[in-house]
């Protein structure tokens, strides 16, 4: 694995030390005007708080929201005659039959057979063989172990269903995404047009578009594929487009001088040279697709999301944990396999790849063994239907008991922490943001944006705030913004502590990284119940859920940034006899500033993406509005308005942090990027 980092001196855009000294100077002085603005804000708040806050009760709606709902109702009323829907329904039928065909091949009984065409042994053999052919025998073992764990833990069918949905979505993402990536990779104008759509697709909460998707694509597998596709498409377009754009201009000029056509340049130079980056994009798209598993289950999408929701329904963390953990297993399997496959392809392209005769033998031998396994699995029931084991239930019970013990033992302490943070921190900042008259908060936020990000940030912020005001959920937006900011502060504290620790001690890094990967991949629905048991329904509970999800990404970014600080600089410092503390605060952190800002940016967006989950655990505000709109179609317009408001908050926070650090772009593959599921939004061009 370590080969990934060493063979790929990636073009990391936020290189430590890249900022010119002048930048350093302005950064320090920025805090003074910011403090002045805050002071003026607090004084103005003192005289005006409680007026014009535009608060709207949880179950109330405005005329605008009802007009948006009306739009959905009109679509519904005209569904029998709407030509667009007839077209999308035809697509949905095709998707549904594709999914069903695959299911009958590998998981569902294909009538009149009592079992699928290929039984479990055949499926495991084929998957292992694929792992062997595209990568190596280690990966083949990993794949075999993963597949067996699906069955042994009792979720064979749900796991394969999820693989089918993910597979179809990823294939469609490639078919749609690669042409778009070429487009944005070769034309700056296309890039500007497409990017806002990608931002929108990645930040719009899924609950908002599930109802329209059902309208256009029906219930079940088709809706699952489409909603997965919407969320999983952007990473591929962004990263592949970035890769194509980054192909060195000299190479293109050199080959252009040979008189090549547009297509020759694209197919012979740009795409081959960007291949490695494109595969990273594919890897990201696959992982994003997996992260939609639980949400697709809300519209009866097949897969591991269903048992996770079953666990939530009976408030049993153990029941939800096992399928949730299998999603992590699947993510690790797909991540490692695609990474290893791209490394192998790279080696083969360079003329490596081992003795061809050994390999030929392996491929033929493995192929024959696979065929035998498939034949056996078609003949014997015991090799076709995965046998049942009780180990999955045992694990579920153990997890439930463990969590019960934990919450019983620490329940008191956690309540104390919740009250402390909420009363001393959260409620105070919320009073300032949400109880200020809207115009005061508007001006103050815009002014702060100007101080930190200059004119560019000011314009974006003003546009976004105006949009938020227009959609009639100002008060809720400010409460959500406040929770996001507080959670991000806590995330950054964790990121600094653990990031620096990991960077300075390799063993800590090795120990913690798998946990971080799991924290990012396990569906949040799995840890809702223990978090609720510890903290009860409250905003702080939502913040904790946001931290669990966001901290891993931020910690990894900080760790990688600090690690990248040149050893010579550190050596030089050590020779002057500085302490460890001085080394961290005076050398490592300042030189990793770019990574810190990127980590903040990511932390904000990850936390914000948990807003809807927060709505499910008592945080209210925009998250509740989205859930409310999904649960009751008469309030769908309010849910949509809340969804758009979340997007606007995301764009605003992204633009401010980006402008503040003058980050040119960060959608490229950074070191160890493959496991950062969510990518930063924002315009790559600057």
């Amino acid at each position: 694995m370590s080969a990934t980092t060493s063979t790929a001196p990636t073009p990391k855009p936020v290189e430590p030390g890249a900022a010119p000294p002048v930048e350093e100077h302005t950064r320090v002085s920025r805090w003074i005007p910011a403090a002045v603005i805050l002071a003026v804000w607090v004084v103005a708040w003192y005289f005006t708080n409680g007026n014009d806050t535009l608060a709207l009760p949880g179950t109330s709606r405005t005329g605008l929201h009802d007009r948006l709902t009306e739009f959905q109702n009109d679509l519904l009323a005209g569904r029998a005659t709407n030509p667009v829907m007839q077209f999308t329904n035809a697509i949905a039928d095709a998707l549904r039959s594709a999914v069903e065909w695959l299911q009958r091949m590998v998981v569902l009984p294909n009538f009149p057979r009592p079992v699928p065409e290929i039984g479990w042994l055949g499926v495991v053999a084929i998957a292992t063989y694929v792992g062997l052919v595209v990568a190596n025998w280690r990966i083949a073992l990993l794949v075999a172990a993963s597949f067996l764990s699906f069955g042994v833990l009792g979720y064979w069918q749900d796991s394969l269903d999820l693989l089918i949905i993910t597979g179809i979505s990823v294939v469609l993402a490639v078919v749609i995404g690669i042409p778009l990536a070429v487009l944005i990779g070769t034309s700056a104008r296309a890039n500007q047009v497409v990017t806002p759509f990608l931002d929108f697709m990645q930040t719009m909460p899924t609950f908002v578009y599930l109802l329209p998707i059902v309208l256009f694509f029906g219930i079940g597998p088709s809706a699952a594929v489409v909603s997965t596709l919407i969320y999983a498409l952007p990473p591929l377009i962004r990263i592949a487009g970035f890769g194509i754009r980054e192909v060195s201009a000299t190479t293109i000029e050199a080959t252009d001088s040979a008189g090549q056509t547009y297509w020759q340049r694209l197919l012979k130079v740009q795409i081959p040279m960007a291949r490695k980056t494109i595969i990273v994009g594919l890897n990201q798209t696959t992982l994003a697709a997996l992260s939609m598993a639980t949400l697709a289950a809300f519209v009866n999408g097949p897969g591991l999301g269903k048992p996770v929701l079953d666990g939530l329904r009976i408030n049993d963390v153990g029941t939800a944990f096992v399928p949730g953990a299998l999603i992590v297993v699947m993510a690790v399997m797909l991540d490692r396999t695609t990474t290893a496959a791209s490394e192998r392809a790279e080696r083969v392209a360079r003329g490596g790849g081992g003795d061809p005769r050994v390999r030929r033998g392996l491929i033929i031998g493995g192929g024959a063994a696979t065929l035998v396994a498939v034949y056996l699995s078609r003949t014997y029931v015991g090799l076709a239907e995965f046998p049942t084991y009780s180990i999955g239930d045992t694990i579920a019970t153990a997890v439930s008991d463990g969590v019960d013990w934990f919450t019983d033992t620490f329940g008191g302490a956690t309540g104390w922490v919740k009250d402390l943070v909420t009363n001393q921190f959260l409620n105070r900042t919320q009073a300032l943001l949400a109880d200020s008259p809207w115009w005061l908060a508007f001006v103050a936020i815009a002014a702060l944006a100007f101080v930190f990000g200059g004119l560019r940030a000011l314009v974006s912020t003003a546009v976004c705030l105006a949009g938020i005001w227009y959609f009639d959920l100002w008060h809720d937006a400010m409460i959500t913004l406040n929770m996001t900011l507080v959670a991000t502060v806590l995330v950054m504290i964790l990121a600094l502590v653990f990031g620096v620790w990991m960077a300075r001690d390799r063993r800590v890094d090795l120990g913690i990284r798998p946990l971080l990967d799991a924290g990012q991949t396990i569906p949040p629905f799995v840890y809702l119940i223990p978090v609720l048991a510890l903290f009860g329904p409250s905003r702080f509970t939502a913040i904790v859920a946001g931290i669990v999800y966001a901290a891993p990404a931020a910690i990894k970014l900080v760790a990688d940034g600090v690690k990248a600080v040149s050893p010579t600089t550190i050596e030089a410092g050590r020779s002057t006899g500085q302490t460890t503390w001085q080394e961290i605060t005076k050398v490592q952190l300042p030189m990793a500033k770019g990574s810190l800002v990127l980590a903040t940016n990511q932390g904000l967006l990850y936390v914000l993406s948990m807003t809807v989950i927060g709505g499910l655990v008592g945080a209210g505000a925009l998250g509740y509005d989205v859930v409310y709109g999904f649960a009751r179609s008469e309030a769908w317009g309010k849910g949509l308005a809340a969804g758009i408001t979340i997007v606007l908050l995301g764009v605003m926070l992204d633009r401010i942090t980006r402008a503040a650090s003058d980050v040119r772009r960060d959608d490229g593959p950074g070191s160890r990027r493959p496991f950062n599921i969510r990518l930063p939004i924002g315009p790559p061009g600057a």
Partner: protein
Amino acid sequence: MRIARSRGARLGALATVAVMALSACGGGSIDEQTTANEEKAAEGGGECGDLNMAVNPWVGYEASAYVVGAVAEKELGCTVNYKELKEDVSWQGFGTGEVDVVIEDWGHPDLEKKFFADQGDGTAEDFGPQGNVGIIGWFVPPWLAEEHPDILDWKNLNKYASEFETSESGGKGQFLGADPSYVQFDEAIVSNLDLDFKVVFSGSEAASIEAFRKAEENKEWVIGYWYEPQYFNAEVAMQRVSLPPYEDGCQDDPQTVACDYPETELKKIVGTDWAASDSTAVDLVKNFTWTNEDQNVVAGYIAADKMSPEDAAAKWIEENQDKVDAWLG
């Protein structure tokens, strides 16, 4: 070469052993069963066909759905497709034939307006009560009702308001609002009855249950929106606080509500096309009724005993064959 072969051989041997162990030497030929299935199909199966049963996301509903589904499967030979959906999505599915039956409807005037024949597109119809009576209201955990019996009258709530204060309720008492799927007028009730409370929405049933469970365990002060039938009441018998009694029309204007929730007769809603079809399951669904106690038994099997819904339904059917026979007419 040599190394590769021996490694391959070792892996092969390992795989063989693993396969033997995993399959537990389960024998039986697939071909025989295929032939049997073909013969059965040739005889002509049931006249039921597919039954698309929506499964809305709460345990009580699941209990009703799987009991009806299991009877349809066992007695009528239907192929039952359970579809896990929220209410609004389920209703959308009647028109496209993706959903045939919603077995427990708590009253959705807005959906009825869209989908019933008199005002909407006529894709759905009311199939009569299913026997359960929905009781919605304000509830407190049992310890609270026991130690302060007068809390069960809304007039005394203000006296205790400060006890219900939390970090979320901004200096007032906290009233725990429910999952947004349910009809709620609590914000209006609080303000119209001049109660010193603030509604904080739990956001999901899971969140409400965890809050009530913790409150009973640790003797915490909690009041919130809750309902019956609900499996959790078997674990913690939540006590209802009386509000000014419900009268016809007192909840017509959501802004002025100042009365309790009415008792709701839970209904069956079905797709019009399916109801007109000759599926033998139509009569079963039409005849199905049972009581809150029946549902709580099955819901308890699922939620407390962790049985799969299929097993829970089968167990109840076995114990209550007489009731099932009545549905089959």
